[in-house]
């Protein structure tokens, strides 16, 4: 399967994420869109990793080329998990305070 498909899929997911972040006001959905963007990147990394490995395998059967990208993906997953726990905690606290998860309520830093 050509790599272009993966790239287009990732780009689409990433753009959906961006548009979601920009347009939605519900904090939970914004949060989900952020996750979408992170995972779009993860998908791209895995795809590239696979392509590199396939190219190197033809030359050397014992190669480990491309495994770094997969390690990166794990890092991103760990960081994203940490982020989720912190972010959700913030949203919970926000709901407790203003009884809403609308991000437009969070404009008190103005002025």
């Amino acid at each position, binding site marked *: 399967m050509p790599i272009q498909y993966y790239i287009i899929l990732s780009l689409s997911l990433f753009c959906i994420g*961006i548009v979601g*972040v*920009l347009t939605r006001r519900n904090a939970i959905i914004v949060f989900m869109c952020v996750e979408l963007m992170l995972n779009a990147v993860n998908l791209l990394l895995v795809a590239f990793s696979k392509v590199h490995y396939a190219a190197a395998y033809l030359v050397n059967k014992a190669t480990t080329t491309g495994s770094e990208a997969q390690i990166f993906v794990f890092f991103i997953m760990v960081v994203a998990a940490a982020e989720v726990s912190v972010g959700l905690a913030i949203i919970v606290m926000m709901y407790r305070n203003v009884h809403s998860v609308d*991000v*437009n309520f969070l*404009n008190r830093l103005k002025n």
Partner: protein
Amino acid sequence: MNQLAYLVPLLPLIGFLINGLGRKSFSKSVIGWIGCGTVLISFIISLILFFDVKNGGGAVISYFNFIEAGKLVIPFAFQIDQLSALFLLIITGVGFLIHVYSTAYMQEEETQHFGRYFAYLNLFIFSMLLLVMGANYVIMFIGWEGVGLCSYLLIGYWFKNDNYNYAAKKAFIMNRIGDLGFLLAIFWLIAKLGTVSFGEVFAHVSSLSAVDLTAITILLFIGAMGKSAQIPLYTWLPDAMAGPTPVSALIHAATMVTAGIYMIARSNVLYSASEVAQNLVAVIGLATALFAATIAIKQNDIKKVLAYSTVSQLGYMFLGLGVGAYTGAVFHVMTHAFFKALLFLGAGSVIHAMHHEQDIRKMGGLKKYLPITHITFLIGCIAISGIPPFSGFFSKDEILAAAYDKNPVYWGLGVAGAAMTAFYMFRLYATTFLGSFRGTHDQEHHLHESPKAMTWPLLILAILSVVGGFLNVPEVLGGHSSLHAFLAPVLTTEVTHETAHTTEYMLMGISVAVAAIAIIFAIGTFSRKPQLDDAAGFGKVLENKWYVDELYDTVIVKPLGNLSAFFKNVVEKSGIDGAVNGVGKLVNYSSRQLRLLQNGQVGSYILFMVLAIIVIVLIWVNDGYIYRFIVKLF
């Protein structure tokens, strides 16, 4: 003996520092002792140097290199020779007498200001000594500027009076105009000869082109015009009378104003090589002598008369320089220092007795109240009028004889000036000392002879005014022209005039007779019926000094003032201030607009972030093609 030379200027400098720093803590007598003592020791050393020079001593003593730049080396050097030794004696001698006189004259001042006064006076002596001892034009220029500064400080000594401050500023600015000429001359010398040392410059005169020589000498003369109050830069000197009277005597009569004469006499080699400059010096000198004398006739302030008289006498000295009678000019500097210091100190004594009244119309009949002042003042008047055997006769006659040699017209005008001198001096004398007292009853009650510290200098100066002339009795009168012989090694280009003895007798006879007639006429007119009303007609023009101050005001000061007002109100306010404030306003306005972007909407921040990322990515795609394109644009 030359190793003592540096002490001559150093001592007054030390006196200046002590008196200047300790003016609040010392008593008046301590300040007086320090002030007079340092100058007295300088005088004694000057005497030693003088006799050393007379016996063939004297040298150029170099201490260190003042300026070293490439090939140009200007040493800090003193030149002790006949001319500077003579000036050293005049400066420290007359300076000492005036210091002593000042201790009594300034007694009423507060201690702190008394100390300031003596500090300035010592600083002046220091600068003046530097001026005459310097072995090159640059060291001379340091002294030249120093005396200008001291003159400014002392004219404005009573700084609480605005008019005195204006007079001080006027003197300083007028001097600066002249100083510029001097400075340009120094630069010109450096450019053409690469040296400013007197000896080297005079040795290389022949290598200068005629144009350079004329330019340098005229520029130097402009410097002398400012310092020695010649037309057109003379108006500061009469205003300088705002200073205390001893200052007028020392700075504005005896010493500082003769700096120009000293400078030209020192540069006699240059001047004798330039016919144009010499004629200019002679004509300006003669014009000043006559012009100032006419003004002096109608002045009613005792010090103003003497001030214009000084300007006039300085004109005679320049006439002497211009016709090549350098010795005559230097001789007149010396005798003038004696009798003009005497006259000013006498005037100071009168002012002291009259409680700071300076208008001669309110005096009269002071003869019987101030006997010593009267007799010494009379001696000064006779001396300046040129009646033999008083000193003024010999010096003025020498200049006039040389002028006759050059051009009989110079002589004729010079004698006319001498007649006016005799007339206004005896008008002053008769109005002040003869007739009856015209002041208030209160003033009459308090009239008193001045204390000893004031009368002693008067007596000494009176004796010098009488005998000073015998230093240089011309051969015609059975003398040896001793000063002439003494100064010959320095004034190498002196013109020796060879008028027949009979002609000389005739010239002397005419000038003495004219002066005598003027004296008799003045005494006869003013002792009985002094002129008390304001002058009318032409007299009014003279009383108002030919309206020269007003002329300068209209032609130079007002247009300059308008120009600065234009720069201040238009260029400064809307141009420079506008630009500076405009930048501030622009930043303020644009930040006010940009602040609107920070609206607190998280969504909009993210939108900007995304847009920025898109822009950055666009710039970098295609191997940074857009980036390179943008860089190329700038």
